[in-house]
């Protein structure tokens, strides 16, 4: 039930309620008076949509082209383009039977139809399949089956009601009518839908998953229950995908491993590589590591393993085993990066980066290096001119820490400073190096910094700065320790 302006109304009903004469949209109070045993629950369209999406995702096992097709309550559907897929399952009948069985196993009331056009299949599944004892229909011929369908099967919404007012009940009734008249009375949409159902106009399914030309999949009659056998399957799949990639001179940048569970759940494992990779063993190793880390719930078993190459880039053929064993090839380093990324995490494997700024903590740092060389990122790497100062400390604190310093004169170097409760006597110092705040970025509260390189009596080196120009920006300049070497 759901609440509308007219009070609580029935949102969807089951077969028993329908048999008792209840209807969708009926007020709950009326329905309860007709059928006192009626049990209601609040409608949750969002969850319905989520489930529909999840089921559409799981339908990927039958065809890579699948999409959820949300409809009015109780009329949701899934669209599948099974062109060329049927032979993998022993014919269209068996494919439909299998898909329908999977849906019913999940407790859904489901019907199915297969037809040469999307529009026809849509109508057949909703109006003919429920009448069929098997719950599904298969139509090779467009016209006869189309003409026997009611006008509602055209996906035209309210227009169907108007058509009925004119006594036009089936599609066959309107099929022979002059097109100009139909357009004038019922709008262009009706003709478009009719043409689509007849196959005169093309209708393209918008698939849930992006189109990936490179995929490899394995299907098992018996579901895999053990991680080891799953890994073996992943291995086989990877090698077959790599063979495809090699034939076309491509390397893998990003991949998705889809594991279809028997009960309709799909596990997705994503993978990125530092450089185009095509070495089956390497990719298998990365995927296995991911599998170990993901601790996926195999449940009642996994019966379809699919690896999709969602991003590829050109990779020339390579000769194996010729480079010096002790040397490190580019590929070797990329492979190492991949392994580190998988185990430590992408943000933990870093490469030095420089930014156009003179504030030390901004001027240089470390950033994700694992996937940094992805083609999309290379364009944005901008290198400022190479004139950075050479006297920076080896170690820099990510956040400068306040220190108490004693200086002889307000703008002179510190003679001693206390940092982390340890007092250091300064014997040598160089500076100041004055760095103004970046006015285009910083707030007004930030001050000029005067940096000093100092060496303590023991010979330890620190990098300190005094923030704020005495008398101009602040009355009490504050000292900070920013680095050590």
């Amino acid at each position, binding site marked *: 039930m759901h609440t509308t302006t007219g009070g609580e109304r029935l949102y969807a009903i089951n077969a028993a309620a329908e048999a008792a004469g209840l209807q969708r949209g009926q007020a709950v109070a009326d329905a309860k008076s007709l059928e006192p045993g009626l049990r209601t629950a609040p409608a949750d369209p969002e969850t319905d949509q989520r489930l529909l999406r999840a089921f559409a995702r799981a339908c990927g096992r039958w065809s890579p082209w699948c999409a959820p097709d949300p409809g009015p309550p109780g009329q949701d559907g899934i669209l599948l383009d099974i062109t060329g897929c049927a032979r993998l399952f022993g014919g269209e009948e068996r494919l439909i039977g299998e898909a329908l069985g999977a849906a019913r196993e999940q407790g859904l009331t489901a019907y199915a139809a297969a037809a040469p056009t999307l529009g026809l299949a849509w109508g057949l599944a909703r109006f003919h399949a429920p009448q069929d004892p098997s719950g599904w229909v298969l139509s090779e011929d467009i016209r006869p089956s189309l003409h026997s369908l009611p006008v509602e099967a055209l996906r035209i919404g309210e227009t169907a009601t108007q058509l009925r007012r004119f006594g036009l009940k089936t599609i066959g009734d309107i099929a022979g009518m002059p097109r100009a008249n139909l357009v004038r009375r019922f709008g262009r949409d009706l003709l478009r839908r009719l043409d689509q159902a007849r196959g005169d106009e093309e209708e393209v399914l918008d698939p849930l998953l992006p189109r990936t030309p490179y995929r490899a999949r394995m299907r098992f009659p018996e579901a895999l229950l053990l991680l080891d056998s799953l890994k073996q399957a992943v291995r086989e799949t990877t090698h077959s995908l790599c063979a495809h990639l090699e034939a076309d001179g491509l390397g893998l940048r990003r991949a998705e491993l889809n594991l279809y569970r028997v009960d309709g759940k799909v596990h997705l494992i994503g993978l990125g590589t530092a450089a185009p990779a095509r070495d089956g063993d390497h990719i298998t190793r990365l995927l296995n590591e991911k599998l170990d880390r993901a601790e996926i719930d195999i449940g009642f078993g996994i019966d379809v393993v699919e690896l999709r190459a969602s991003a590829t880039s050109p990779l020339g053929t390579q000769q194996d085993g010729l480079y*010096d064993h*002790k*040397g*490190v090839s580019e590929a*070797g*380093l990329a*492979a*190492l*990066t991949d*392994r*580190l990324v998988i*185990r*430590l*995490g992408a943000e*933990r*494997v*870093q*490469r*030095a*980066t*420089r930014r156009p700024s003179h504030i*030390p903590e901004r*001027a*240089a*740092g*470390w950033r994700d*290096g694992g996937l940094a060389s992805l083609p999309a990122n290379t364009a944005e790497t901008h290198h400022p001119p190479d004139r*950075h100062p*050479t006297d*920076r*400390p*080896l*170690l*820099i*604190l*990510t956040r400068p820490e306040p220190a108490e310093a004693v200086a*002889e*004169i307000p703008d*002179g*170097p510190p*003679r001693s400073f206390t940092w982390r409760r340890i007092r250091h006597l*300064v*014997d*040598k*110092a*160089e*500076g*100041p190096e004055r760095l103004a705040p970046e006015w285009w970025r910083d707030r007004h509260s930030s001050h000029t910094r005067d940096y*000093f*390189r*100092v*060496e303590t*009596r*023991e*010979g*330890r*080196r620190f990098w300190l700065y005094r923030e704020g120009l005495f008398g101009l920006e602040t009355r009490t300049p504050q000292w900070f320790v920013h*680095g*050590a*070497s």
Partner: protein
Amino acid sequence: MRSAPPRPKGSAQLDRLRAKIRAIEPHALAAPQGAQPCRAPGELLHLQPGLHEICPAEYLDTPAALAVQTGFMAMHLRTSERRPPLVWVRPADGRGQDFGQPYPLALKAWGLKPDEVLLAEASDMADALWAMEEALRTGAWLIGEIGQASQYDLTRSKRLNLAARDCGGLALLLRSHLTASPSAALSRWRISARPSQAEAWRGATGLPGLGHPRYRAQLERVKGGPPADFDIEWRNAAFHVLKPAPLAQRAAQPDPIALSA
């Protein structure tokens, strides 16, 4: 004729055993133990492929030890025929990062090319040790910071040493100033900072400037050699051994008589 005494037989067995070990580990018995010539400090600065440990003498010397580690690595990288990539493994989230992160702009002054460094931060020590070994096995050279991790033991160090040696790589590990547990490292250095030579002409108001950084390098143990102790200075992208100051000019040394008086 008396039969041969049992001793030659035993020594033949020993020889066979030595040959066996030599086959497994070519470097292990390269030179007989005990009679090691004292090597010059300059020679000691050339590290053999394998694992070497560097420890600060005190907690506050940690940056100095890291600087020496970086300098060592740069010197050896420069002289290596192929330019292997460098992997820098350090613990993540604050532990062992008391003095901050390596600063890319400073790496150049220490002889490293920032672009060649791959920094890997590991959330736990098991991951860090795994990453170190993985890097060495790939043929990369390694700067590692392990602090006082208990997971780093004799077995672990042996694995790292073998991984580095098999690929002809250099692995430099920074340990904590507190630890002294045994390991299979080829050498262990203890580093402390030393005051540099004052450069009066570039100092700040009232203070002299900083000279080339100096360190006291104590070679605590080295495979097949006696320990050594000398001062080094980082100058022109290399470490130079400093001659001990003549006795007459030891200004920094306190006068023992004056102290007792």
